[in-house]
């Protein structure tokens, strides 16, 4: 009995050490996010709502970037994505070291002027930019972040206007200061802001 007890002590000590090491390793890895996409492989020349040239990702290196993908003729889902971007920024306390982007995948209609009006509608903060660009450049950018779009419906309305809508991916992503996409969530879901805020807080601290 005594012999067993004496033998058990070193074993339990070793097990405790292993367990604590495991916990320490886990906590140390908490902030490690798998790289989903490395955006440094390419460079995209875009413009913001004020027609200011933006080079992605170079212009954002050294900062976290939260970006959603929208088009302004979308009446239902894209406003949710935009509102989620706004909520993330608000819940983080409007950090100056995190940039917020809404990138349009409908460059034919979403000119800088239209994006400027869209920004006014949502009363977004200075630190949120909406980007568009030449259609080929925008398509190339969307391919690089795996945002898919397809024309869903082209219709002539009762008043004779021809309009079309787009089916599209529903995403909000986080890019780290090294230009790597490390977080990707569904963009329009109500729970997304909380998750991204938690992730960003653990990363920034």
């Amino acid at each position, binding site marked *: 009995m005594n012999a067993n007890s004496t033998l058990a002590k070193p074993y339990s000590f070793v097990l405790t050490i292993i367990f604590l090491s495991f916990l320490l390793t886990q906590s140390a890895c908490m902030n490690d996010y798998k790289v989903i996409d490395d955006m440094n492989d390419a460079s995209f020349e875009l413009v913001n709502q004020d027609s200011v040239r933006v080079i992605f990702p170079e212009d954002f290196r050294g900062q976290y970037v939260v970006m959603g993908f929208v088009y*302004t*003729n*979308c*009446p*239902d*889902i894209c*406003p*949710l994505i935009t509102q989620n971007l706004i909520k993330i920024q608000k819940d983080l306390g409007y950090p100056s070291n995190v940039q917020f982007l809404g990138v349009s995948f409908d460059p034919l209609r979403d000119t800088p002027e*239209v994006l400027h*009006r*869209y920004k*006014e*509608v949502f009363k977004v903060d200075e630190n949120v930019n909406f980007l568009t660009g030449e259609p080929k450049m925008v398509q190339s950018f969307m391919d690089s972040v795996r945002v*898919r779009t*397809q024309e*869903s*419906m082209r*219709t002539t*309305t*009762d*008043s004779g*206007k021809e*309009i079309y*809508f787009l*089916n*599209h*991916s*529903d995403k909000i992503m986080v890019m780290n200061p090294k230009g790597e996409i490390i977080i990707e969530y569904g963009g*329009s879901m109500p729970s997304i802001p909380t998750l991204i805020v938690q992730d960003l807080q653990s990363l920034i601290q």
Partner: protein
Amino acid sequence: MNNQRHSFSLVSTRTMPLNLLLLFVSISLGLMLGCTNKLDRPDSALAEQGRLTDSSMAKSEWNIAIEDAWARPTKAGMMSAAYFTMYNVGSVSDSLVQASSNASKDVQIHLSYMNDGIMVMEEQPFVAIQASEQIPFQPGGYHIMIIQPTMDMQEGDSISLSLYFKSGMIIEETIQVGNPAK
């Protein structure tokens, strides 16, 4: 035989103007009733818009209502959507077949949903609502799309929203711009 013919001819000659008069009165009454329908009965509005209605349902069976209606703020020429909860508190099913608003001539019923990782939006020819059913029109689901409104729609503004049903019922409401639950 001749008498009979004669008599028939006489009757016929006498009744012809009467028949014509009756026909004229019937047509006039029909037209008057038709005009009355156009003014008072909502299904005429649907008929005008080429939609089929089922006028077999009595007005007393119209038991659909909406609550918590609101529209998304936007600027003239952009996009908006209206949301609400639609209730059928009656015992008869019905279908929402069309919507209109003073904010735009182009208003459609749409549904957003996720399909194979892609967010899809489709126009709906109708939305059926069963007896005692409630259907939410909410962001990411059913919504009334207000296409390129002719006016700015700012938080606190109001717009009209009319919903046309297969039964002939129309719900006409003034709804607020901006989500009150936000």
